[in-house]
């Protein structure tokens, strides 16, 4: 109970400071929009082609924009040595991690929910044909991105080349989840259901979430205590 309260306190704290400054949220959303616009110049967006690559395009946008949010996650604690103050407090590392991860999760979902309609308008795409399944895939895959991103944000927070190291480390690590998300999102935006063959991707996503969340929760204390 105390654990959950502490987790929520951390999450709310992060969300409050983010909404107050909107530093990373603004950056991430504008970045997402810019990529979406730029991409329309890269290909001639006929409906069929876009439908084919919609999942890939969207998840690249989410992953790139997400890195901006994840980068700030632990970096915002550096300013006045706040990270030390948090680690020295009786909050367990796992609660600190889950709190920060939940805040990032909310922020990433906001970016995604803003990007999706823009994608729909810019590319003339109806993306709501399988709303429930799409929401489920978004929820699972975004959590995967969040977990990896938050843990590696903690891992790289004190590095000289933090902004560079984080993306180089997280993208390869996220690929299984991104691949699954891209494949499933493409199917769902095209309005198809998930065929028997493609359930492996859902299982992969769930497995990824479970395995990496447990790993992260176990290891984060070691990462934070020097």
């Amino acid at each position, binding site marked *: 109970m105390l654990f959950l309260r502490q987790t929520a306190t951390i999450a709310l704290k992060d969300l409050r400071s983010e909404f107050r400054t909107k530093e990373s949220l603004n950056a991430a959303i504008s970045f997402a929009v810019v990529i979406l616009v730029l991409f329309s110049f890269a290909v001639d967006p006929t409906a069929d082609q876009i439908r084919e690559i919609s999942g890939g395009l969207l998840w690249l946008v989410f992953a790139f924009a997400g890195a901006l949010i994840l980068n700030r996650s632990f970096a915002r604690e550096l300013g006045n040595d706040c990270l030390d103050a948090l680690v020295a407090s009786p909050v367990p590392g796992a609660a600190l991690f889950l709190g920060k991860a939940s805040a990032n999760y909310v922020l990433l979902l906001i970016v995604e929910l803003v990007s999706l309609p823009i994608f729909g308008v810019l590319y003339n795409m109806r993306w709501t044909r399988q709303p429930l399944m799409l929401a489920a895939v978004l929820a699972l895959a975004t959590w995967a991105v969040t977990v990896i991103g938050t843990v590696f944000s903690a891992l790289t927070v004190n590095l000289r080349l933090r902004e560079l*190291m984080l993306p180089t*480390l997280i993208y*390869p*690590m996220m690929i299984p989840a991104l691949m699954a998300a891209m494949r499933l999102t493409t199917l769902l935006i095209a309005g198809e259901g998930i065929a028997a063959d493609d359930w492996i991707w859902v299982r*992969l996503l769930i497995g990824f979430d479970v395995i*990496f969340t447990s790993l992260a929760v176990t*290891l984060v204390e*070691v990462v934070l205590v020097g």
Partner: protein
Amino acid sequence: MRERILYALGAIAGLWLARNLYVILLGLPDEAAQGAIYRILFFHVPGWITCFTAFLLAGISSILYLIKSDPRYDTFAVATVEVGIAFTVIGLVTGSIWARIIWGIWWTWDPRLTWALITCIIYMGYLMLRRAIDEPTTRAKNAAVLCIFSFASVVITYKAIDWWRTQHPGAVLSFRTGGGSIDPLMESMLFQNAAALLLLAAVLVAVRMRQEEIGREVESLRRHAHAI
């Protein structure tokens, strides 16, 4: 003394590999469907066996480091990862050359191939992370955490041929198929070459570990000089 033993073991591994090469090239018949090119597999499969073994040991060693915080485990982990990457590259390149003949293309985005490549990139990230951290204890600790995460990609690579219908051939070794898909003579040759490569890898790991120890000594002397 330690060096002499290492060099001797290295020489034995080299000679063993040369002898295996001789048998593979001249002692074994061509394969019915693939012709001569199938002989690459005697390097390709043992190469991957070596690299999976290396990454597995690196993962175990990383866990032990986090538990005991003894720098020797970190030394072992970095040495095995680096040698593992060398063998991953061998696996990728030999596989690619084989694919050029059998499939007519160098590369395809088949799940097995894709994940093998991702594994390689992830472990290169491990080496990059190490370079970015100056303080040895933090470096060891953060690298150990990354190494444990990275092992997931090795597992996915290993299981990819079971989970997806891949263009990459399925399992051939009898401990995965229950036997029957490979000639016992060829399989025994494959394992012999794997043993020779593992021995070679062990020698390389030992050499690399000694270098890491020298590196630590240099770092600690620098700190010492700084403290004066």
